[in-house]
């Protein structure tokens, strides 16, 4: 695979989760009247954080498992174009 898609998915949801969890802790309780009194930011933030971390965990595990066959980011491996092109 060209780019492990689980990496951006995991990162994005971990960031969203962390943001919402923190916001849930610091935000004014009054805004949760509309969500039936539930601090949904805190709870759903934790769900997103867990989801993101699980995805990142998969990425780490597959990197550990692919030793010689496919090194994760081949730094100078294949690059027919000179770095100036990018």
């Amino acid at each position, binding site marked *: 695979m060209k780019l492990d*898609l689980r990496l*951006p998915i995991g990162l*994005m*949801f971990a960031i969203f989760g962390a943001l*919402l969890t923190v916001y849930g802790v610091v935000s004014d309780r009054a805004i949760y009247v509309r*969500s039936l009194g539930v601090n*949904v930011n805190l709870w*759903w933030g934790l769900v997103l954080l867990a*989801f993101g971390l699980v995805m990142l965990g998969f990425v780490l595990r597959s990197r550990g498992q692919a030793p010689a066959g496919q090194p994760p980011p081949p730094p100078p491996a294949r690059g027919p*174009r000179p770095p100036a092109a990018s």
Partner: protein
Amino acid sequence: MERIQLGGIDYTILIIYFAFVLGIGWALRRFVKSSDDFFLSGRSIPAWIAGLAFISANLGAQEVIGMGASGAKYGMMTSHFYWVGAIPAMVFVGIFMMPFYYGSRARSVPEYLKLRFDEKTRGFNAITFAVMTVFSSGISMYALAKLLELVLGWNFHASVVLSALIVLAYIFLGGLTSAIYNEVLQFFLIVLGFLPLVLLGLKDVGGWAGLTAKLDTVATNAGFAPGAWSDSWHHLDSATANPMGVEWFGMVMGLGFVLSFGYWCTDFLVVQRAMAANSMTAARRTPLLAALPKMLFPALVILPGMIAIALHATGGGLLPLGSDGTPNYNLAVPVMLGHYLPSGLLGLGLTALMASFMSGMAGNVTAFNTVWTYDIYQSHIKPGQTDEHYLKVGHAATVFGILASVAAAYAATRFNNIMDMLQLLFAFVNAPLFATFLLGMFWRRTTGHGAFFGLLTGTLAAALHHGLVLSQGAVAGLKGGFLGVVLHTYPSEMAQNFWTAIIAWTACFTATIAISLLTARKKSDDELRGLVYALTPRQTDHDLPWYKRPATLGVIVLGLTIVLNVIFW
């Protein structure tokens, strides 16, 4: 309506999402070295990614907003668009049609028609498809910008330009791979962004039992039997007994067979995702893996609409009313977002909403640039150029496709009728298409002339039928009856559309057979190898463990769908 106020946290989430979308395009740009990479992802996508992209590309404007609106307007019967109108066709395309699409190495659906039939059939399909994708993408853009204007008070032009630029940037950089990766990201965002809304809504109405009790009031208020909004099959024996105004035969044949198979099996927008898969098995599993989440989507997109109408009817005017006094169903989902979600999750929900529009747009644009480059440019305008040349054309076509979509979005703001008319025309062209594919793939005697003139006959039959019938309460014109004589009046517009599709399909099917028998076969058995069922080696999956075989997956998917239909009967 009351506008939704966004806070700093909401904008932060939106901006982070855009950064990831563009970042994926940027990270993938160095993998685009040939036209194959740009248009087909170098056929390297694993099945699960292709599968999620397969449903995400179809998640355009029509899905989240439209299915929510239908959930409010028709209730549980909307689930037929999934459990009858999508899953069986997805299983069929995976098990029976993918071997031809993927095995023939065709790079697009029109190219398959060229290999199987001839140039004129390909040309007809390529041109109508290219025009259709541009307009669908334009309608997506228009709907998104209109919604943001109404709900958030954003500037219409700014929304159009912003969404166009973002989609352009990530497709231009990473081609189909970038579109597919972003579609998967969008899939998770849509699921995780809407789920809290559904959970809160259900908690509010008192679970499924509380919801059905409230929906019974909705049904009896509208003059139907209680349950008309919460059962899917119960009230289908007569068209007058349900809010959709359809009876079971028109629904199963029109929606479940002609329209659904026509869309999922022949629309390059979705088929392209499976063609990009990294092996024949992965390509066949793509639609099957897609069907698993697809069958649960009603909970995510229809339920919010049903909850909205239940609250509207029993708690007093949640939905804004239109000029004719009926609720504005299209606002069901946005109103629900503003009703339940506090700042924070609100940003996530709105980001998910925007993601659904953008995935629909991107799907159309990637399908457009491929069909334009391979089936129109390479085959009619400039054949025999280097691959590098076609890659450049693909990039140019992406820019052109986006610009044309923007133009279409503005056309929609000025001439609403033109958009309706075009959609009607496309419906006429698409309805018979599945008959052509079915005959082409399973009957080797089908000829190029048969396919082409059969398609024309089907399209004509659709137009003729539409011109001679009308739905109840509609005025003659775009809605039908434009030939001056109204032979039949359908109880609803939906029933009228289903029957137009049935008649177009039948006309195309019989005309293709008749003309094929009258014309000489031009393609030998050898040329048709890999394109026709009888001349293609069977797929044997004995080397795969049983749970990975497409046939097993297909049976599981169909079994689960039947269970869902029975539960919500």
